[in-house]
């Protein structure tokens, strides 16, 4: 993370002054207000100075609001559906119908787990073919029951394992993208933490793609890019920069639609507000999307992905 010794020192000072005041000796109201404003300024500055690699670390922050706890904080009701109906259930990619404000929706979300055992079971949010086939099943239900689909993307990528290959993970991802694009309901994807490669786009080919302010979205991890292109693990921060994987950069590239602001310091500093803000944003987007005729929605969706990241100028092939 960014060097925050100055901030930490100021925070300690604040605690000290508050204790003095509570002890009743002196009125330090003015001094406290000044210090607090100073602290906020420092935080803002530091936050603005964050490198791409700092963002990656924030996106991966162990306390970042995500997965099931975020869903439970955000939804009024959530009924989890499990299993691909073909042999397994993946705890790393979850979902089910839910109520969000006034909207009934189908939620899909990656889950990384809190305890070490849970994290192992969820493979830190790397989903398997079972996960993507479950999400396919849930999309099918959403289409049938006219539930808009909302996906919360937070994965280092699809799980690379022998069994994943045996069960055709590539095909499962392709089917998931295809079905999401053909849904007869509005769709919203939120890149919540890490949006890692095929494992992310599998559930992110939506009508609206939002990104949390400190989320990242990339075709490869900075570590992977450093290893492959730089042949040097120490080039990871440099790779993070080159990949243009932050929300502002992706907005500039017109690959996402909007950024959901986080609390100063990152979403984990205020999980409650994160859940509330995200719910409010989603409900607002849903209201807008649900007003659109379905034909128009599907037409715009096709155009969006047909044109996404296109080369702008035809040049003569040499």
């Amino acid at each position, binding site marked *: 993370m960014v060097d925050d010794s100055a901030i930490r020192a100021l925070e300690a000072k604040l605690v000290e002054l508050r204790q003095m005041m509570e002890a009743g000796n002196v009125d330090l109201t003015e001094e406290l207000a000044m210090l607090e404003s100073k602290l906020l300024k420092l935080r803002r500055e530091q936050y603005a100075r964050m490198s791409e690699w700092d963002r990656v670390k924030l996106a991966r922050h162990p306390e970042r609001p995500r997965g099931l706890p975020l869903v439970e904080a955000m939804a009024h009701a959530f009924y989890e559906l499990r299993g691909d109906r073909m042999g397994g259930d993946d705890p790393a990619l979850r979902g089910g119908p839910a109520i969000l404000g006034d909207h009934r929706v189908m939620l899909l979300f990656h889950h990384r787990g809190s305890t070490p055992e849970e994290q192992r079971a969820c493979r830190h949010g790397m989903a398997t073919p079972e996960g993507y086939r479950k999400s396919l099943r849930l999309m099918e239900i959403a289409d049938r029951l006219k539930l808009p689909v909302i996906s919360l993307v937070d994965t280092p990528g699809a799980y690379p394992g022998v069994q994943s290959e045996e069960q055709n*993970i590539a095909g499962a991802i392709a089917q998931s993208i*295809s079905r999401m694009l053909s849904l007869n309901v509005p769709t919203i994807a939120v890149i919540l933490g890490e949006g890692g*490669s*095929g494992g992310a786009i599998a559930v992110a080919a939506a009508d609206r793609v939002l990104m949390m302010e400190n989320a990242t*979205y990339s*075709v490869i991890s900075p570590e992977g890019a450093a290893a492959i292109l730089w042949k040097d693990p120490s080039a990871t921060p440099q790779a993070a920069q080159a990949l243009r*994987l932050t929300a502002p950069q992706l907005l500039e590239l017109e690959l996402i639609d909007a950024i959901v602001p986080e609390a100063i310091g990152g979403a984990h500093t205020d999980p409650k507000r994160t859940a509330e803000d995200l719910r409010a944003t989603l409900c607002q987007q849903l209201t807008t999307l649900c007003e659109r005729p379905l034909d128009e929605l599907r037409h715009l969706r096709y155009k969006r992905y047909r044109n*996404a990241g296109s080369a702008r*100028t035809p040049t003569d092939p040499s």
Partner: protein
Amino acid sequence: MPIRRDSKGRYVEVELRRAEETLWLRCRECGELVFRRKLKETNHICPRCGAYFFLTAQERIASLVDRDTYAPIESGYASDDPLAFVDRRPYRERLDEAQAITGLNDAVVVGRGMVDGRPLLLAVMDFRFIGGSMGQVVGEEIAVALERAAELRIPFVLVVASGGARVQEGAVSLMQMAKTVAARNLLAAANVPFIAVFTYPSTGGMLASVASLADVTIAELGAMIGFAGPRVIEQTTGQRLPESFQTATFALEHGVVDQVVPRESLRAELARALLVLSGDHNG
């Protein structure tokens, strides 16, 4: 990447080469020096040891399509270098070099042609162009080909030779997965058949998008077919990989491809599939 092998069908890596300039090629499997023109006659199979030479897109097209029926469709797009990406070298330089070596604007060649008298829309990848990776131009060309096939109602054939996404185009390359799948959905809605041919290699983002959505998939013997690289899998999981891992035979056994055929039978195999699938132009 290490080449795992079917019992038959061994690919040999050859140096990047300009399409028309080398007269002799050395087989890395047996050391034989083979006259280029001779290779055309043998389907680019080493006459001494039977190893498969990598094919350029043009060579692949020539090996599949009826003589004098091929007409290229040129989009004229070249990569914008959307991220202005620089690693140890600028991406721009890599693009220029690949374009110079291959004479192509990017890693896929699109055109119309006939196989055994049946028309098809063809997109063939060229592994020499930055490992056949899919960036904005590959995505665009494949989407154009799919849209054209839908419009003309003639079968679409994609010959895959791709290491995956074009890393240097970051999330832009990721979007090509959605783009090509969207275009494939259009083709499907137009009820037009789609055949994918998997060669060495058919991996990563290309496999995890449009290529996996073909109605019929045919693997060339010796192909490598998989999502994640073997090294990544070993490092992530500590698993030992089965001997046949990600070979064409492995893909057949795990229900991923319909047929595995040696290179010399690929054209006939394609003709067989087109015969039953392309009803409108059925003799």
